[in-house]
């Protein structure tokens, strides 16, 4: 058995925006064994949530993740409304779905750009992020901020989309759709991208089911789950669209699923903007009853679930958050082993991990070397550690 060297990627690494540490035990270029050690991002959000009222909680929950910064409030608000069965006015439902879908577009575009960056194709990164700017401009027009839009409130929406700027939004959406379809064609049938992404990081269907993987990662392996279709909420079932499912589950199909979903989201937004009824946008909830509520939402990366236990007071007694990447990243055991180191980064990124959501990540440390240094010296420490590493028979 050749002696394995341990190649750490992270925790402070230009490739990954957030700190996470992948330890790959490689023989030459092939990965034999891999562990992930996260926990750098753990901020104890659930403990903080118990100290805040429902309204303050919306803002805290929004800061869990920057890219999907409306998924968590969406699920949280669904959960609280589920506790005491609050009915949300029609118009607020439409606005909520519009915000959710807009975010899906900007999150998927961001991922396509990053995937291009990972395989060293910076032109795709620049193009994808260039087309993402108009979407952020729409957000700024609607909510005043590029990312943390804080549009949600228990029982409704904080700001209304005024009638007169709907045509402007429709024009902007058409422009975004034109860009995205061009980008989709360019990326999907580029032979070299296919060479780099086809057939690697394969997640078979039964593995996907067994690991309970959610969202595009699951839909890329042929598992049909989409909360918007199966557990309809807000206006997700009032506008015609279809769910994208692809069979073969490698990195390429994960890209295909995300790109086609952008086009679907544009369809939903256009439908909602047209079919939006007038009326109030807030059911001004006075107090929350007693009981338990579960809120589901299809975030760009998969199903977000929030659990609320309310005891009648203004503070949630228990607030449990489970982000989609928490399930998706766990599937790295099935997809990374056996691939080459150059692909490892791409495969782990294929599930579009969002570590700030999943600060509940696992830490696996068989050699119990207690303190791991960072970046530079992590590398040196692991270098000394590889000397000490006993060669596995």
């Amino acid at each position, binding site marked *: 058995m050749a002696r394995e060297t341990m190649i750490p990627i992270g925790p402070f690494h230009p490739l990954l*925006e957030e700190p996470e540490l992948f330890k790959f035990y490689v023989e030459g270029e092939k990965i034999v064994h891999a562990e992930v050690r996260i*926990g750098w991002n753990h*901020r104890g959000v659930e403990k903080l949530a118990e100290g805040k009222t429902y309204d303050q909680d919306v803002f805290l929950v929004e*800061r869990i993740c*920057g890219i999907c910064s409306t998924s968590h409030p969406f699920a949280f608000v669904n959960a609280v409304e589920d506790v005491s069965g609050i009915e949300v006015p029609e118009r607020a439902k439409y606005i909520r779905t519009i915000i959710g879908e807009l975010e899906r577009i900007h999150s998927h575009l961001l991922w396509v750009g990053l995937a291009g960056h990972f395989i060293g194709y910076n032109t795709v990164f620049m193009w994808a*992020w*260039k087309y*993402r700017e108009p979407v952020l401009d729409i957000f700024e027009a609607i909510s005043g901020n590029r990312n*943390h839009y804080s549009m949600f409130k228990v029982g409704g929406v904080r700001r209304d989309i005024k009638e007169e700027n709907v045509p402007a939004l429709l024009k902007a959406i058409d422009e975004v759709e034109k860009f995205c379809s061009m980008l989709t064609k360019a990326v999907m049938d580029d032979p070299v991208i296919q060479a780099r992404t086809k057939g690697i990081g394969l997640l078979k269907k039964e593995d996907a089911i067994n690991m309970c993987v959610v969202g595009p990662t699951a839909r890329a392996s042929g598992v049909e789950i989409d909360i918007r279709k199966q557990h309809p909420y807000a206006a997700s079932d009032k506008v015609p669209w279809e769910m994208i499912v692809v069979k073969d589950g490698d990195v390429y199909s994960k890209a295909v699923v995300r790109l086609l979903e952008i086009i679907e989201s544009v369809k939903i937004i256009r439908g909602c903007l047209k079919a939006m009824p007038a009326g109030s946008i807030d059911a001004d909830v006075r107090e929350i009853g007693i009981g338990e509520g579960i809120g589901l939402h299809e975030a760009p990366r998969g199903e977000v679930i929030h659990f609320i236990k309310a005891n009648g007071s203004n503070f949630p007694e228990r607030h449990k958050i489970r982000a989609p990447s928490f399930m998706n990243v766990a599937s790295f055991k099935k997809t990374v082993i056996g691939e080459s180191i150059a692909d490892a980064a791409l495969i782990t990124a294929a599930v579009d991990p969002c570590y700030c959501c999943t600060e509940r990540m696992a830490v696996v440390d068989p050699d119990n070397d207690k*303190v791991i240094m960072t970046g530079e010296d992590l590398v040196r420490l692991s270098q000394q550690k590889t000397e000490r590493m006993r060669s596995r028979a």
Partner: protein
Amino acid sequence: MKRIFKWAIGKSPWVFHLGASACNNCDIEILDTLTPKHDIERFGLILAGSPRHADILIVSGIVNRQSLPRFQRVYEQTPNPKLVVAVGVCACSGDMFRDSYNFVKPVDEIIPVDVYVPGCPPKPEAIIAGILKAMEKWKQL
């Protein structure tokens, strides 16, 4: 000779992004500064591959207990003269995660911070302005 070096470092500061546990919105805005709409390469800034190549450390997010020792190590490895720019309210003051049990201390008690860019997330224009303001410090090197 000093004057030439000061001119040179003012014109080509290389940036290394130090992402302590953030909600990665500031990280996305930092990457946004590289994109065509607000291109920082026209000021000569590039995202360096390792702290060894960097002149400016951009910090985003709060430092939790686990990443504290690693945080200091990366700071020690960046060669002088170096600057630290704290991007986002979390990096500047710890913001709403201050009273979490995993929060240790704000960034400026761990490493000396030169410029604070508040905002959640700060706009790319604000980040670029922050970096350029930080480079003024090199004038009186």
